[in-house]
């Protein structure tokens, strides 16, 4: 039985490339239709040491993708030759998997963002469309957050600013996207050094008094 529509879904994933690394962010909600069903769900996974994956769309399909990547990493480890797949290679692999599944008319209903060492930032969608960019946003974020990220982005931006920018966009998304949540997770992927994926935390200081001025 093929999936014809997603059931339990995650919303946007955002990413921004900085001089000293890449920042990835998303909220921790898995909606059941319009119901905010699972509110502390991790949508950023880190199967390898060199990259993280953030995913939106059908949550079970995201788990499947994570399993695939974990298998890939484990197989690689078992070769015992010290070679590790580069983030770009993983990105391409994901694109092949997604394209193969859509060609089988059994797509994985996800938008994926891959952030890796060496300032890698790339997107793969459920059809296998894949590209790299200095700012990325999937889902509603591609409409609401992408213009904000583009405006804020500078070539000499550092990761602290990048993280603040992503957090700001997540806040905007929470205000305006009914499938978003104020509980979020950030991943910091420095060009060198260990990747840091934060625990889910709340966006503080929410201001709803502007709501009445919005149609």
């Amino acid at each position: 039985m093929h999936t014809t529509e997603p059931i339990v879904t995650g919303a946007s994933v955002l990413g921004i490339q900085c001089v000293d690394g890449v920042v990835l962010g998303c909220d921790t909600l898995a909606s059941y239709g319009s119901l905010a069903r699972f509110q502390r769900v991790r949508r950023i996974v880190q199967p390898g040491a060199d990259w993280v994956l953030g995913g939106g769309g059908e949550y079970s399909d995201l788990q499947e993708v994570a399993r695939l990547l974990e298998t890939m990493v484990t197989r690689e480890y078992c070769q015992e030759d010290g070679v590790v797949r580069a983030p770009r290679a993983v990105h391409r692999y994901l694109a092949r998997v997604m394209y193969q599944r859509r060609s089988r008319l059994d797509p994985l209903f996800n938008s994926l963002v891959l952030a890796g060492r060496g300032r890698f930032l790339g997107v793969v969608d459920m059809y296998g469309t894949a590209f790299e960019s200095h700012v990325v946003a999937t889902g509603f974020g591609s409409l609401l957050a992408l213009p904000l990220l583009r405006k804020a982005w500078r070539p000499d931006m550092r990761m602290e600013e990048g993280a603040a920018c992503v957090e700001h966009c997540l806040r905007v998304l929470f205000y305006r996207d009914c499938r978003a949540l104020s509980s979020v997770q950030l991943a910091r992927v420095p060009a060198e050094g260990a990747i840091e994926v934060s625990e889910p935390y709340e966006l503080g200081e929410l201001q709803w008094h502007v709501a009445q001025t919005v149609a």
Partner: protein
Amino acid sequence: MLRNQYDTDITTFSPQGRIHQIEYASEAVKQGSAVVGARSGTHAVLACVKRSVSDLASHQRKIFELDTHVGVAVSGIIADARVLSKFMRNECLQHRFAYESAVPVGRLVRHVADYCQRCTQRASKRPFGVGLLVAGVDELGPHLFETCPSGDEYELWAMALGARSQSAKTYLERHLEEVKQAKRDELIRLALAALRETFAAVRDAELTEHNCMVAVVGIEEPFRVYEDAQVAGFLEAIRPAPEPEGGSATGAPSASEERMEDTS
């Protein structure tokens, strides 16, 4: 021709614990014309003697490019080598398709060795009668590997296969430190000098631009094959004063333990 009752098929051990068919396949590797491989910290080089069946025929090529970063020199049954080359080219292409990157050389060699091993454990198959020297470059630097019909594979600094290769091996053993330190052209010179050693015992034969082939791959340098007029310059470098020690190592004692395994 039957040596004993335990060599008629590939799946039967002799009481001494040997599989004779694999050993016969290894003999085929020694029948091929000589090939030499060497690698330094920056480059890997392959060199081979091309054989010609007659004056009317062309020389048989023994070095094949597999991808931009890896190539192979073969000794043994060349038809079998073509099968393995095709297999390896396919692996390279598949890796590029799936991962948009060059396949790590060690992985490629492991894959082809596993493929060879499968032929040594099934009654309906025969081992490949060919030995490969695989030279390539990946993120970890340059590599040289040897594969055997048995499915064994070794990473090496330098190696020679084929007819009278023992004298080339002896030369490489004596010059191992130079090989490790060598720059590009020096490495080519050492490989060709080692190859020339295989001619030491043969009357009226020498290394010429018509009967040898050289291939080089390095960090930031794609795999490239040189033949005919292109190798003339390299041969010029080994022309003056053949080393006096060369003539003595004419016999081919089968000291197969004398492998220079890479310990790094």
